[in-house]
């Protein structure tokens, strides 16, 4: 089943012609409409008008998350705000947020590409699809929502959280397709078990999971516990949101929508392309985005391309599931968290030593973050009530910065493990 067969099964040569045409006009638009890119092109003495070959992509400048932050909020938009019909923002933090915009055509393309991903996973107009991604500034909820409506599925925009209610609705509304993070799928599975509900009595048959890294072992567990076919899909708000790539029923790599996104895999240190098929950082150039085009956006996600043809008939190249990050970003319950954000908050609080450790665990399939903080003795041995207030204060500050709640534990000075004088900042105990 294909959503746009003629695009998804395009001959390589025709695809490359289309990519070149689209890249040429994208370069023209960013070169004339986005001062940031105009400057970058000038610095590199790059004649973007004369771009001739897809292989010259590597001569173009990279765009990083920091560039997006530096141009907060609208600096990288390629159209006036009056042409923008939607704004999304990266996972809910202030100060370091990034903002992306969409024109009406962008929303249309987005819906279409998500429709491809849904169709590849086996979702049809006959499905009842429960979207348990957060709706709001996060692109996950709306992205899947519009795509599912596009193919004509019956959409339940339940959003995230309240697992028992999710299950109630799943039973009553006869949900056939589930969309959420893979870890939340397992929480639902466990809650079903606790409630004594047999998953095979549900109508559920397929799941589309994304927004955080997961593993084959988790897929098997989800498949067994929910008796469904679990598929992986990939996207990021900086280039669009979900719909960049998704698995077909072969469940062996994600087909990249290459007519809309040009991908490269680079060595994150040398920034040179890796050998074909090797693992590296995924870099994405948008080919059709009107409001927020991106040239060589460094996703920081690690993957490799699988050039072998897929039995499903799609000619779109597959990428392996995301295997990690090339920076220290943590994904906690689908929210992007950088250790630096935590550090920033801690350093603003009096009485805290500049040593901390972030411990991430997965308990009952739910991510749990504990921040161990070294404090001066005076605070540590003070009255219990005051200590509790102090902890609450740190927790509140962290929660408002990160957009998720974390646990805080105070420890004595010099108790955290140090490597070369610095404490080890992150301990991720999650086994994927």
């Amino acid at each position, binding site marked *: 089943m294909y959503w746009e067969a003629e695009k998804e099964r395009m001959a390589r040569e*025709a695809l490359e012609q289309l990519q070149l*045409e689209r890249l040429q006009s994208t370069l*023209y638009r960013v070169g004339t409409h986005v001062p940031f890119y105009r400057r970058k092109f000038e610095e590199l003495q790059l004649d973007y008008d*004369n771009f001739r070959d897809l292989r010259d992509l590597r001569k173009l400048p990279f765009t990083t998350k920091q560039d997006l932050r530096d141009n907060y909020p609208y600096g990288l938009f390629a159209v006036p705000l009056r042409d923008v019909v939607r704004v999304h923002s990266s996972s809910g933090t202030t100060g370091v947020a990034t903002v992306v915009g969409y024109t009406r*055509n962008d929303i249309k*393309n987005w819906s279409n590409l998500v429709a491809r991903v849904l169709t590849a996973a086996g979702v049809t107009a006959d499905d009842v699809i429960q979207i348990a991604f957060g709706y709001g500034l996060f692109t996950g909820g709306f992205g899947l929502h519009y795509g599912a409506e596009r193919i004509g599925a019956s959409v339940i925009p339940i959003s995230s959280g309240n697992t028992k209610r999710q299950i109630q609705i799943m039973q009553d509304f006869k949900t056939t397709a589930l969309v959420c993070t893979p870890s939340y799928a397992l929480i639902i599975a466990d809650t079903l078990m606790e409630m004594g509900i047999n998953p095979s009595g549900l109508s559920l048959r397929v799941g589309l999971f994304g927004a955080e890294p997961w593993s084959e072992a988790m897929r098997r567990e989800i498949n067994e516990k929910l008796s469904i076919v679990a598929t992986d899909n990939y996207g990021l708000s900086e280039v669009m949101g979900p719909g960049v790539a998704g698995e077909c029923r072969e469940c062996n790599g994600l087909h990249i929508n290459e007519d809309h996104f040009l991908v490269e895999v680079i060595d994150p240190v040398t920034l040179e392309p890796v050998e074909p098929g090797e693992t590296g950082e995924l870099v994405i150039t948008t080919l059709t985005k009107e409001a927020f085009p991106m040239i060589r956006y460094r996703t920081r996600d690690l993957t490799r391309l699988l050039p072998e043809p897929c039995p499903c008939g799609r000619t779109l190249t597959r990428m392996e599931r995301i295997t990690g990050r090339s920076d220290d970003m943590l994904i906690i319950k689908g929210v992007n968290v950088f250790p630096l954000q935590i550090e920033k908050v801690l350093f603003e609080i009096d009485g805290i030593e500049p040593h901390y450790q972030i411990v991430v665990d997965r308990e009952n399939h739910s991510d749990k973050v504990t921040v161990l903080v070294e404090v001066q003795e005076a605070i540590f041995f003070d009255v219990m009530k005051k200590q509790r207030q102090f902890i609450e204060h740190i927790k509140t500050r962290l929660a408002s910065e990160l957009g998720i709640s974390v646990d805080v534990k105070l420890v004595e000075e010099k108790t955290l493990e140090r490597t070369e004088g610095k404490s080890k900042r992150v301990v991720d105990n999650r086994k994927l």
Partner: protein
Amino acid sequence: MLKVRNLNSGYGKLRVLKNISLHVDGGEIVAMIGANGAGKTTLLHTIIGLVRSTEGVIEFNGRNCRRMAAQDIVASGCVLVPEGRQVFAPLSVEENLILGGYVLQKKEGRPAMARELDRQYDLFPVLRERRSQLAGTLSGGEQQMLAMARALMSRPRLVMMDEPSTGLAPLIVRNIFQVIVRLREEGNTVLLIEQNAKAALAIADRGYVLETGKIILQGPAEDLLANRDVQRAYLGREKIE
């Protein structure tokens, strides 16, 4: 069917087309829109071999035809309906058509040409009525139909049309565009160059926007119609919502 990559061309030292890439697939209507002087006609003339390109690739049915002579390009199945009709005024309608069928007659003989003539009369009944009338005495719309029919006489695989709506009354324009849609239904492929962006995009599958010799936008025709830049520059309006 037609693939153009990084095409550069112009007149003397004047570089008119800058790094143009475009493609037309079989069975498509592709519209090229742009203002006066953007390079639209130069583009068609370069593809058909009337203007020499300085650089780039023009592939027609997998063959590089960038350096081919115009008559060989026509013989390979690519024709141009020129701007301003340019019918042979002192000849009759039928004589015009027979001239258009010259390539076909040479290749497949007189009966094939006669059959083709009949087909064109079916497609453009008004031309059958006026078959012995001098082309110069036809109305603008009829001349446009004659120019199209004359081009179709060679049974081309790709029909390129240069501003078929120029100087025609709105009603006639609609008529002409209906014929273009019919052509596609009969299996023809059309590259349509138009200043009348709205009418062209309304019947096209895809479109390109040419500005000062560069393609600045391309995409499905409906996306271009919905694009605010296109609306502002070529549709002469801001859509009020």
